[in-house]
């Protein structure tokens, strides 16, 4: 095993223009938010994002004009926190290409990526116009065994999975407690994973019951200690309400074109 613990600044600098990022969590839950705050400050361009239900962390990258394509089935903040303003603005200005699929379409594309196969059939999708608008992602084909028609999706292999976890060791073994959402799948599909963690713990704590380890060290390229790394969102068992004030400030910043100022304040004093 190799030591992979590094400062946030080193981890974010791994991301290169044009790469495909699989962003962990769901809506406002367990996003790698602090990572994306710092990444947005680097002004990367032409990033592509993939995630089943994307939220705050992805939206920060959209708002920062870093993104040109998003693969998703849902992109928003849930209920009172509403639509994702950065993503919405990017789409409405024609700057972001939205590749929308059903949840399982995005999951199937990531599974195919992780399985090393070029495409995979997916259930349902019949009569959806999502098929018609994105022939580079969806096709209809025929089973060679019985002639049955089936929708297939093209494989996606993210350059990076970026997930926020509860506990990791310095080698990259990582454990999520409670709801995993699709984070384990993201790490299996991606070439390499970046972990931000609430806590750094001993390797021994993983050896007690290895079945509870979400990501094995060999998939991981970087581990960053990031307590409260999913704020202003929620992290299961750690902080369970959304920081509404910060979310309001974020929405206002996007409306006023003042993302840089918001990021400066939000990341003040963080490495």
């Amino acid at each position, binding site marked *: 095993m190799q030591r992979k613990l590094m400062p946030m600044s080193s981890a974010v600098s791994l991301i290169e223009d044009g790469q495909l990022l699989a962003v962990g969590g*769901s*809506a*406002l*839950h367990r996003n790698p938010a602090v990572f994306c705050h710092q990444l947005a400050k680097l002004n990367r361009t032409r990033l592509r994002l993939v995630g*089943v*239900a994307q939220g705050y962390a992805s939206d920060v990258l959209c708002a920062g004009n870093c993104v040109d394509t998003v693969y*998703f*089935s*849902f*992109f*928003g903040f*849930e*209920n*009172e926190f509403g*639509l*994702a303003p950065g*993503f*919405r603005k990017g*789409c*409405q*200005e*024609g700057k972001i*290409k*939205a590749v*929308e*699929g*059903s*949840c*399982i*379409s995005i*999951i199937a594309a990531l*599974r195919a990526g992780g399985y090393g196969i070029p495409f995979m059939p*997916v*259930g*349902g*999708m*019949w*009569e*959806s*116009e*999502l098929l018609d*608008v994105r022939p580079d992602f969806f096709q209809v084909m025929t089973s060679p065994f019985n002639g049955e028609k089936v929708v297939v999706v093209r494989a996606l292999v993210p350059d990076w999975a970026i997930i926020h976890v509860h506990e990791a060791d310095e080698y990259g073994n990582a454990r999520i407690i*409670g*709801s*995993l*959402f*699709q984070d384990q*799948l993201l790490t299996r599909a991606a070439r390499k994973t970046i972990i931000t963690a609430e806590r750094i713990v001993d390797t021994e704590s993983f050896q007690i019951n290895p079945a509870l380890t979400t990501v094995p060290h060999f998939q991981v390229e970087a581990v960053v200690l990031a307590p409260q790394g999913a704020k202003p969102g*929620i992290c*299961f*068992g750690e902080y*369970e*309400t*959304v920081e509404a004030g910060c979310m309001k400030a974020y929405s206002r910043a996007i409306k006023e074109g003042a993302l840089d100022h918001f990021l400066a304040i939000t990341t003040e004093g963080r490495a």
Partner: protein
Amino acid sequence: MGYGPAEMMCVALSREIKDGDMVFHGLASPVPMTAVKLAKSMGRNFTYVNIAGGVDPKWESPAVTGSTLSSNLYHGSAATYGLDEIMDLACSGKLDISFLSFVQMNQKGEINMSYIGGDYDKPKLRLPGGAGSATLAPVTRRTTVWKTKQDKNSLVEKVQFVTAAPDPAKEFSVITNLCIFRLKNGLLELESIFPYTTLQEVKENTGWPINQTDVQVYPAPTAEELSALAEVDPNGIRNIEF
């Protein structure tokens, strides 16, 4: 005990759940979540799965947030089942009910959750996306979509875009703050209206013509249901979308 549209909708959704069902709802679904808790409280024996990965989480614990991704939907589970696996269940024909939502819907039950105005690549309003619906609507045994604000902007003659479409061979119903529609021969038919509204009000808030001159009134919530609802939802999560 008094009740309004929030209570009526939770009760109506909960009554869609039968013993032995496998039931799912997605994120941003405070009304279905509350309806599931109510059905559990009323003694219905079914299995509940959700995006938080819980399998029959402890329904007695009140939710403190309207987010349906929270730990409230996980704690007390005897097993976990992720969204990936739930979708596999559905695609294998093993999901009995999914509760879905929409922004626009036409009389064929076709749902738009993608965009309004402009075109797909430069929309006037980009919506959040249909989440599971494009797959779930055609494969789930019984789909129930809910809408807390029925009007001519939501139930429309023509949707801008078909994000998801039901399979007319499967059961498909719509429960709004005013009434219940069910898909028959490929078209939504008004089945009943809630006690506090009128056929006239429903017609005025539906974007397609309703030719019926009479319609049954849906049974009001019972006292038992309302008291159970107050108990499982003391924080009024059911009101968030109203």
